[in-house]
């Protein structure tokens, strides 16, 4: 599903990681942790096709991101749900329209999919704010909005970069619960976070693996978390 093979990446000669390999199976739950600046966001961007590795290959759904055209990358992103820490929306659209945006751009904005939008809004607890604009939401609500938008196309993999970075512990738990529910539906979840208590909480509810980026390498974290 997601295969990373001997990947290296650097910014202007400063290596972020080198010779990193990983194979992610369908339906698995991964945490990616590491200190600030260790390359977690870069790793997520590489998996999403927003960056291309300098060395090595990344295969998503069997296709190498390096060889993909813009058209193919867009097609791939429709099968990925991406949530960033600083989630961005189209501020002139309502919450409902923002959640439906992936459907709109895919030309699937019909009545059946509209029903899914309303269901998703209820699922993330934003059903009472359907006509509100994103800038009127709190940090936690924005994260839930980003999650709803990320899953509207029923993606096979969800990549979340520090989704709980800007929210309080209660909201972190709520977001994690939503992620666990998605994983139980068969979705592959890949979350980068530096919040170890969140990882511990997840491990109590789901089989999750934890990876750590440090010293340019990716390694499996032990039970000491």
């Amino acid at each position: 599903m997601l295969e990373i093979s001997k990947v290296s990446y650097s910014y202007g000669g400063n290596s972020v990681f080198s010779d990193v390999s990983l194979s992610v199976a369908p339906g698995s739950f991964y945490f990616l942790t590491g200190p600030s600046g260790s390359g977690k966001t870069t790793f997520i961007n590489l998996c999403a096709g927003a960056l291309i590795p300098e060395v090595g290959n990344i295969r998503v759904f069997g296709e190498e991101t390096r060889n993909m055209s813009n058209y193919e990358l867009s097609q791939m992103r429709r099968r990925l749900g991406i949530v960033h820490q600083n989630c961005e929306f189209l501020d002139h659209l309502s919450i409902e329209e923002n959640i439906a945006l992936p459907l709109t751009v895919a030309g699937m904005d019909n009545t059946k999919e509209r029903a899914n939008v309303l269901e998703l809004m209820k699922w993330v607890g934003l059903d009472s704010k359907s006509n509100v604009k994103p800038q009127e939401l709190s940090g936690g609500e924005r994260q839930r909005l980003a999650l709803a938008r990320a899953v509207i196309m029923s993606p096979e993999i969800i990549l979340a970069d520090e989704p709980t970075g800007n929210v309080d512990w209660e909201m972190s738990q709520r977001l994690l619960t939503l992620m666990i529910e998605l994983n139980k539906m068969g979705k592959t979840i890949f979350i980068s976070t530096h919040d170890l208590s969140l990882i511990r909480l997840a491990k109590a509810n789901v089989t999750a693996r934890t990876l750590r980026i440090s010293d340019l390498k990716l390694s499996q974290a032990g039970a000491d978390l």
Partner: protein
Amino acid sequence: MSFMLNFWKSLLASPDHIQVVPNTGFTVWLTTFTAGAMSFVAVIGLAFSLLCAELSNRWGDSLKSASSIRLSAPTDLLEKQTSIALAILDQTKGVGSARLVGLQDKKKLLEPWLGFDFPLEAIEMPALIEIQETDVGVDYEGLRLRLSAELPSATLDNHSQWRQPIEVFAALISQLGMFTVALLVLSSLAMVSMAANAALSANIKVLRVLRLVGAFDAFIVTAFVRKFTSRVFVGSILGTFCAGIVLVLMPDFSENLGILDEVNLDLIDKIWLGTVPLIFVIISIFATRMAVKTSLKRLM
């Protein structure tokens, strides 16, 4: 090829493309105002260029086949000499017609300098014969020699002294007009490109979000092209309309200005002016498409 096909299909299809680009912000006014101002200048420039072209053609045509003979003689001899001159011209190959310029024509000719009520008949005036050539052309050297032998008081003027410079000047004005129009089209392209780039810089987040949710490049390009082109079209229509009003309100050179008589825009010229908004739409599609594609490349 398939990209172009999708682009044109989506350009004419779904309204979804429109809603993803915000309506608000200074860029709306910037784009509309730029298109309006450039259209105004383009219409005025094009109108003057077309008028200059017509004027230069008229100058060229009127000078190309015209010449004159001036007879200076005492009044009692003038009529006889005029008859001789007309007879010589009648025998000269290449002369289409020869006409004695009458008192009323002379008055009209001198009216700008002497006024309409000047008693021209009270003073001695030389006789003036206006000659129109045929396509064959007149042998002016031969005619001059014959006139000097038979009518020493006659002076033949085929306007050669000032015909050529005026023809060159007229052609130059016409070429300058065309060059100005070409420059206007290029500068409009640059202005619309700059406005599109400014609008894109203000909407870079929209590009990022659309990319994130899996929008194809064709969708993003079409969304921006449709939005900007509609703004450019509205601005251009307004600019063209204002320029049209200015042209309508221009004073009418209809009488007594010689070469400026009835210099007006004809129907074909007006159709040309009417195409300015369409030209701006084409410029907008081209410029916005380039700008969005460049921005998308930078995002990659």
